[in-house]
């Protein structure tokens, strides 16, 4: 993806909740993470992505551990989104394709997701999500991570 289309997509992304971290100095928030979303099957609905920090008593990908998130109109294939102003450290990434646009990752009667989803580094779990470590990356300066969406 070239730089221009990347910016175009970035403009379409809405941050759906702000950084939850308390006010920090500029140097403490100098890092940024660019997430390359791929594997999106269709242009229906939206793609949601979220950044998580490890937190005691929170099992990834419980949204209680999420510190930032954004959504974009879905595009077949993928796009990139950059979270700037991050405190350096380890972040796990997850995302899903909200095909029906209801703002939620739909699940079946047994709680298994029925919409596309994925994790940072392409991490996968069997019959459930991967753990925080597998889906996370150390962010400092400008860092990138892959987020393939699977169905």
């Amino acid at each position: 993806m070239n730089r221009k289309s990347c910016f175009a997509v970035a403009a379409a992304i809405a941050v759906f909740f702000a950084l939850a971290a308390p006010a920090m100095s500029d140097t403490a928030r100098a890092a940024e993470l660019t997430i390359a979303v791929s594997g999106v099957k269709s242009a229906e609905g939206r793609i949601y992505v979220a950044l998580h920090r490890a937190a005691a008593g929170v099992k990834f990908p419980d949204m209680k551990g999420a510190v930032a998130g954004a959504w974009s109109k879905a595009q077949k294939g993928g796009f990139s989104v950059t979270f700037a102003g991050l405190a350096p450290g380890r972040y796990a990434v997850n995302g899903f394709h909200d095909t029906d646009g209801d703002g939620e990752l739909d699940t079946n009667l047994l709680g298994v997701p029925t919409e596309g989803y994925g994790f940072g580094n392409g991490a996968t779990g069997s019959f459930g999500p991967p753990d925080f470590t597998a889906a996370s990356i150390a962010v400092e300066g400008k860092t990138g991570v892959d987020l393939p969406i699977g169905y």
Partner: protein
Amino acid sequence: MTDTNISRRTFLAASAASGLAGLAPFAPALAASGDDWGETFAAALERNPMLLGWKTPPDRLDAKALTVSGTWPAGLKGRFFRNGPSIHDRFGERYRHWFDGDGMIQEFAIADGRIAHRGRAIRTPKLDREDAAGKRLYNGYGTHLPKAAPVRGPDGMNAANISVLHHGGELMALWEGGSATRLDEATLTARGFKSWSPRLSGVPFSAHPKVDPDGTLWNIGCNLLPRPALVLYHIDRAGKLVKAGLVDAGPIGLIHDFVVTRKSLVILIQPFLFEPARAARASVLDAHVWNPQAETRALVVDKDDFGKRRWHALPACFGFHYGNAWEEADGTIRLDHCLAGNPGIVTETLRYAMKGEFRPSAPLRYAQIVLPPKTDGRIAGRGEEAEFAKVAPAAVGRRHRFVYTLGAPDNPEGWHFRTVVKRDLESGRVESFDYGPGRIPEEHIFVPKPGGQREDDGWLIGTVLDWRKGVSGLSAFDARAVAAGPVAQAWLPYPLPLGFHGAFVRV
């Protein structure tokens, strides 16, 4: 004791015939040492052609006109579909259980006595992903890969290999622990998983749905990972979901089959229970634990209200298939069951068959289970060896007089069936036809005669492998004269893998 004696005798005879007697004691060490199952099976097949039914066939089979002997019944027209584990070898490696082979749909198209056959491997997402990777990726029911790829849900390992259903105008291949796979009727090509509703997408739909005489379909769904759960389905004759429910049944194992009465669904939970914690390092099968001291629990659920349930305790037993069930005026439920004293058939016999090795186990025998309305149930009587029990479609949920099974009376050839059996529950009379040495019959189902009046006005139709000639065939019996043998047979120019369940679709 009788069970053990018969098993030992058949085992010794089979071992002597196949030259495997000396090999058997070392089998566990071989199994642990590396992937020698493919080579071991190939060598065993050379010595013992009886194993032909466990050989992987080509992905595609076609025969325009089968060789018909006898007179094919004029009214027996339509399509007979069968399914079963078929693709047993992938990328030079062999599955370690018969139940793991990827499914293949077999179609016998019968028109005016002329019969054509098509066989097609079922292209599941599992097969496609493995082919793309150029290697096996996923665990099976009895095969555990040390580095199996993760799956999002059970459909990631869905082999679509147990049975076939034609309902609401749709043809589907059924697996044991995942969704039904839709098949294109014209081409037999897989068309993805069936979703009965968005909430049921990816929820297991078991391989033995029951269809009431009015066309209403009932099924269970048995989920094991990440958490065991039991799902109930009510689907109308057009294939539309009426309702579904989730039952908290406590610990369960894989539940293969169930039965219906006019009023109820009857589900047996045998004490061969799945322990999720074991599944990380073992196959699904090996994560099951047999506890003969525990009871079999029978769950009776009201068809009209899935919330109305009752439980009965039964002695520990193991089996795959029921025939039929009915409810008497006082609420007592009676059902046919083919059961054994333990699950050795699945943990031993049907596992090591993949290696060309015969391991004895307690045989499955015909039994009737009685569930009085307010007390514990009982296993009323055990009869001869029996499996693949079927009844007339018009008798489902009603009191039936006849049940049809396969049998294996003292078969010196080893563990497989040889007879087709008709059991009259009123007179106690049992009649059978013995296919004789060299032939292995598979499930025979009942197809009603158009305009028939009696419960047994119909045909039994089923496949048989003639391993001496190296071909499979299709038999049609008059259900009123089973002992007389097939009225007609149609032979293929090639063998088919031994499979499980079939369905007949009238033209």
